[in-house]
């Protein structure tokens, strides 16, 4: 069993799996159960000033499902904690006292003035919490009141509030970013400029999951009306991964610790975020879908993977894929591959044929007795057939070796790397010296 101990900003936890600030971390009862189940840490449900906010009394969630009604995307219109500040602070203190080895981070959201930030930071410090996370991400409800993503969408505000927070506490400050912007590097840079110890991302994405076609109203519908919510769950993982990688690759942001969030459901998702630069990860929807027990699979899975790879610390995964995260213009245009269909595994559904014939390159042949085979002289190796095939590993991409002739282009596969920047078709190509 590999050592999964995590050290994020000096905050120790037995594993890098934290629960994100959300209903799973809303109160003492939940957090104790989460720690008993094995979670390494929690970011407590966002606290605000009294009088506490209220939530709607109708449905808060909408969803997108895959086959077998597997939940793929979840949307919510829930606000921050709807319980009094003192109640939350008392509970945080008691839980931290009983679980000193777990990370206890407290999420905060108060109006955009220094006084309320000073006020609440003092209170949180008294609980013995390890750090605070500034919620600049919530995209609904709170943003209408000038908080949450209303702050997160304006880099100047991010920098200003982060500075206040740093000035008023000894605790590490994590800034949680909203994805509802065009370039994630800008808010991340603002957080860094304000002195943030780390950023966490992503918060939820503005979304309407579905429309009720009888009521003609967005779901979830409250008395005939709906409002946009925040989208999360497996569906947002690719968006979140890209944003984490953008920050990890940016020269000015190098070294800024990242806590990865967004659609993490399995140990593998977590490892992928870490490989792209996240020092640890936070989970919400997966826990809300399957319960706290999933952390057991995350722990055993990551541990087995690390043993297999011979990694002795989770830090060996962190950022390992960043150097291979490139730009399109630097991809090797001399690399040539062809799709290959394993006839033993093929179940003859013909989906590869429909996809390639109707929408791609007419590179799959179909015989009268339903044998499907790739026409190497047409295949551009786009990977669509691999992606639509229902059988794992039935269609694979085989790289051609240098010296072979690509039957599609009639050109010999070159051994050397060459990219778009020097390609003759590129009007801006730099002539090779």
């Amino acid at each position: 069993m590999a050592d999964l101990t995590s050290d994020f900003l000096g905050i120790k936890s037995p594993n890098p799996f934290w629960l994100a600030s959300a209903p799973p971390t809303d109160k003492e009862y939940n957090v104790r159960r989460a720690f008993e189940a094995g979670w390494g840490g929690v970011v407590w449900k966002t606290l605000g000033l009294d009088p506490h906010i209220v939530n709607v009394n109708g449905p808060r969630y909408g969803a997108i499902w895959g086959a077998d009604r597997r939940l793929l995307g979840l949307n919510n219109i829930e606000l921050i904690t709807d319980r009094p500040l003192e109640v939350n602070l008392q509970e945080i203190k008691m839980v931290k006292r009983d679980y000193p080895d777990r990370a206890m981070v407290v999420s905060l959201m108060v109006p955009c003035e220094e006084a309320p930030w000073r006020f609440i930071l003092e209170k949180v410090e008294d609980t013995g919490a390890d750090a605070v996370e500034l919620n600049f991400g919530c995209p609904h409800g709170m943003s209408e009141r000038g908080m949450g993503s209303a702050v997160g969408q304006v880099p100047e505000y991010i920098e200003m509030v982060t500075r206040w927070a740093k000035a008023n506490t000894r605790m590490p400050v994590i800034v949680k970013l909203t994805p509802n912007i065009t370039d994630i590097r800008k808010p991340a840079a603002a957080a860094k400029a304000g002195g943030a110890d780390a950023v966490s991302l992503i918060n939820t994405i503005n979304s309407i999951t579905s429309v009720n076609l009888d009521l003609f109203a967005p779901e979830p519908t409250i008395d005939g009306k709906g409002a946009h919510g925040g989208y999360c769950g497996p569906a947002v993982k690719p968006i979140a991964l890209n944003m984490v990688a953008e920050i990890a690759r940016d020269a000015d942001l190098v070294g800024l610790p990242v806590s990865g969030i967004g659609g993490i459901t399995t140990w593998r998702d977590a490892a992928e975020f870490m490989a792209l630069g996240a020092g640890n990860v936070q989970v919400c929807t997966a826990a809300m879908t399957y319960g706290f027990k999933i952390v057991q699979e995350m722990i055993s899975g990551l541990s087995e993977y690390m043993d297999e790879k011979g990694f002795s610390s989770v830090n060996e995964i962190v950022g390992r894929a960043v150097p291979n995260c490139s730009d399109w213009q630097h991809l090797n245009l001399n690399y040539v591959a062809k799709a290959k269909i394993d006839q033993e595994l093929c179940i003859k559904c013909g989906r590869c044929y429909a996809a390639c014939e109707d929408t791609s390159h007419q590179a799959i042949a179909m015989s009268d007795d339903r044998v499907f085979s790739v026409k190497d002289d047409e295949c551009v190796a786009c990977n669509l057939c691999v992606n639509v095939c229902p059988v794992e590993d039935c269609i694979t991409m085989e790289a051609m070796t240098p010296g072979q002739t690509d039957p599609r282009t009639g050109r010999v596969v070159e051994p050397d790397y060459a990219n778009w920047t020097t390609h003759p078709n590129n009007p801006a190509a730099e002539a090779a010296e």
Partner: protein
Amino acid sequence: MADQLSAGIVAGRLSPEELEANFADLHPRLSDHEALVASDRCYFCHDAPCITACPTDIDIPLFIRQIATGTPEAAAKTILSQNILGGMCARVCPTETLCEEACVREAAEGKPVKIGQLQRYATDTLMAAGIHPFSRAAPTGRRIAVVGAGPAGLACAHRLAMKGHDVDILDAREKPGGLNEFGIAAYKTVDGFAQAEVDWLMQIGGITWKPGQMLGRDVTLEALKGAYDAVFLGLGLAGVNALGVEGDDRKGVLDAVDFIADLRQGDLSGLSVGRDVVVIGGGMTAVDAAVQAKLLGALNVTLVYRRSRARMNASVFEQDLAASKGVRIICNAQPVAVHGNGAVREIEFAYVDDDLKETGETVRLAADQVFRAIGQSLEFDGLAMDGRKIAVTGAGRTSMDGVWAGGDCAAGGDDLTVTAVAEGRDAAEDIHATLGAG
């Protein structure tokens, strides 16, 4: 009170409650949830092999996708536009040798998509809503006689009516439906579904039902030809093959099809069945007679087939069903004599190899009731024949101009409900095209 041990052919071996349980729906309609889960498994294959395997070419991936997206009534229309008896076929088709055998998920995991049950889900939903989704074209003034109200005749009549022709359906019986009504096992089509389906089909309009009209007895082919613009024969196979052995006429030796027809029409607790029943044959009729005799309360039911198990016409699913109900299956034995004193007491079989060569050994089985299920035959002449069936070319054209035939009575194709529907439908299209041209 009789019970299972009572000797002879008696009624009331089981309580009404036991009978009701035994003859309950074999595969009840899927719930909404089950249908969603089942439909999610369809891969929406390109040029799907299941479509090719269906004799009526139903666009299966399309109708399953329509179920998956919450529109079962649209799914039903997809089904019914190819197969107007899609509801019955969903219940009786041997899907394990048709669409589901071809399903790529049978190849992938040995678990095909539940096509038959999904088809039933869709068609039941539509019919429960009382919707008949087809309407008639403008009247053509043409009149067509359809003889036989089985699946072939009904499918032909509906398609012709849809095209705007006026159709008279003549049948020797008092009730329409053919073997849907008188042959199919009771547990496959419960709650009077066969009649309900015919009533629903007739909603198209333009079809006149003429019961008690037997071709050859009440009316001749010549007369029909004179009175109508075209004639379609969907006569099925009304005759029953004899055993041709000594004692075949003893009391207690019966035709399986008659026993089954009584089962479908009568009150189950009033129906008599033997204690020791022997069924001779290896097809669907033999299995249905054996299984239903067992379900009625017969103590011992043995099905005896003259060739090996692999050559039985009944599908593996049917054979397993029989075995699971407690029917004993003996293969490679052919009847040589029916013994008894007036009534049958024993039946004697010779063991034979697959070429029916006797091994020299025989076996006797106790029997107070014996069912013949060794095939049905056509009782009709006047047209060119192909073996024992009416010879046809193209879409059911017989040797006589203006006369078409389809279903079990016509040569070619398996003797299945779905094949009869396909042939009836295609003949209708051909009749329509021919009349239009004339």
